[in-house]
């Protein structure tokens, strides 16, 4: 028991540092790129242009219809046979960004559609172009609607980064696995990894609440 506690405490820093130097940065960077991508894809789908909207629809369909693990393998192990050899980190960021882009695009599209038509019209009647109306009037309102589902996407992403361990990114879970293999304490180390993921997600949920409150201040009290 004493040695288990000791191992737990000694493993805590390697695992936490795996979170700090890999899991969290990987999630943040992929989410930022994925969101930007998602906005573009959502606007393509809403553009009314058959080609753009068709491309967007196809992309979302492929991303949502294939496992993330397979997407990671295609980028990291598959592309080299086409002559594209990427390091683990860029591979992970590309795969995660594309994945977030597919899911978040649907969230953003729905959020934009949830803004009443009258808001567009009012924006147009004060002289705004479509782009300006989108940026100043519609997206801020869509943002509020999309915080809960996008928080879900982000929390899923944080946990999904554990898949990057199979393409050799030394993140939280890979640290735990390595210690487990050496110490033969699998249950302890995997529980410890789970605990750290859970703590990160608790913080994120709290952050979501703060953000929702901030964005809700203009809604009926």
């Amino acid at each position, binding site marked *: 028991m004493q040695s288990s506690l000791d191992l737990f405490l000694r493993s805590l820093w390697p695992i936490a540092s795996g979170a700090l130097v890999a899991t969290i940065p990987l999630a943040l960077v992929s989410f930022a790129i994925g969101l930007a991508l998602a906005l573009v894809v959502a606007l393509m789908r809403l553009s009314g242009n058959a080609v753009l909207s068709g491309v967007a629809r196809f992309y979302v369909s492929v991303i949502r219809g294939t496992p993330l693990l397979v997407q990671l393998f295609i980028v990291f192990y598959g592309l080299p046979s086409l002559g594209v050899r990427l390091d683990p980190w860029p591979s992970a960021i590309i795969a995660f960004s594309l994945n977030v882009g597919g899911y978040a695009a649907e969230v953003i599209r729905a959020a934009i559609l949830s803004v009443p038509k009258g808001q567009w*019209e009012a924006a*147009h*009647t*004060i*002289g*705004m172009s479509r782009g*300006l109306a989108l940026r*100043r009037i519609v997206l801020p309102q869509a943002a509020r609607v999309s915080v809960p589902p996008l928080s879900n996407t982000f929390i899923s992403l944080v946990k999904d980064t554990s898949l990057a361990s199979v393409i050799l990114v030394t993140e939280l879970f890979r640290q735990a696995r390595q210690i487990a293999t050496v110490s033969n304490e699998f249950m302890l180390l995997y529980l410890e990894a789970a605990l750290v993921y859970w703590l990160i997600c608790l913080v994120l949920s709290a952050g979501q609440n703060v953000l929702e409150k901030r964005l809700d*201040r*203009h809604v009926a009290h």
Partner: protein
Amino acid sequence: MSPTDRPDAGDRADGATGAGGAGPVLRVRGLRKSFGDVEVLRGVDLEVRRGEVVALVGPSGSGKTTFLRTLNGLEVPSGGVVTPRDGRPLDFDRPVPKRDLLRLRDQSAMVFQQFNLFPHLTVLQNVTEGPVRVQRRDPAEAREQALALLGRVGLRDRADAYPVELSGGQQQRVGIVRALALEPDLLLFDEPTSALDPELVGDVLAVMRQLADEGWTMVVVTHELDFARRVASEVVFLDDGVVVERGRPEDVLTDPREPRTRRFLRRLLDPLDEPGPEAAPDA
């Protein structure tokens, strides 16, 4: 009120008195609009001169709101000619380029039945958004103008509130101020009091009457016949996509020539009145 209150009030009043000399702010000829197979407007004419207040009245489904929305391009007409103030006509029997639609849209501002204030912006930001972001006016100056205009409708102290914190009547007055701040040639009102509780209607109508007195050019879709009678320079009665009758309010609203107008007015003014000889069986 401060002098910055309405920098152009005098100018507009002059424009109103000198309206005979100036060209119309808007001229519409043979305007048609279809939604699919349904022809909602079937050749409507209208001319609005500077300082005039045109009241569009008619039963629901008559096409009056659609007509109003074609006047700023929110609905693109299926046919007919619309000539904005600059005198260069837009011929909707052919495809009309987007920049021409913008030319039409930018000369007017609109007040909506459902207010359509921007819920994520404060009252003040709602008003300054157009002047600052679209017209690129100086933010400080736009702010002063907005506060002065809000003061005129009794809402200066609510400048930092969000729309949701206001009553319907207050929201609509903000909607009017938002339109005024753009200093448009033409104000369009789409049933501005229809969504309000009866006791809040008066405040909004009072503001609109004041605007008319100051010489603003207005086209108003309304069921408030009393307002139309007292404020409008012309009443246009639309039914089934055509103008049935038009003229001075005292004529159209008091002594209409057309049976359809009479029927509509009787139903609206005095639903309990006994039917007259020209009333249809369903009246």
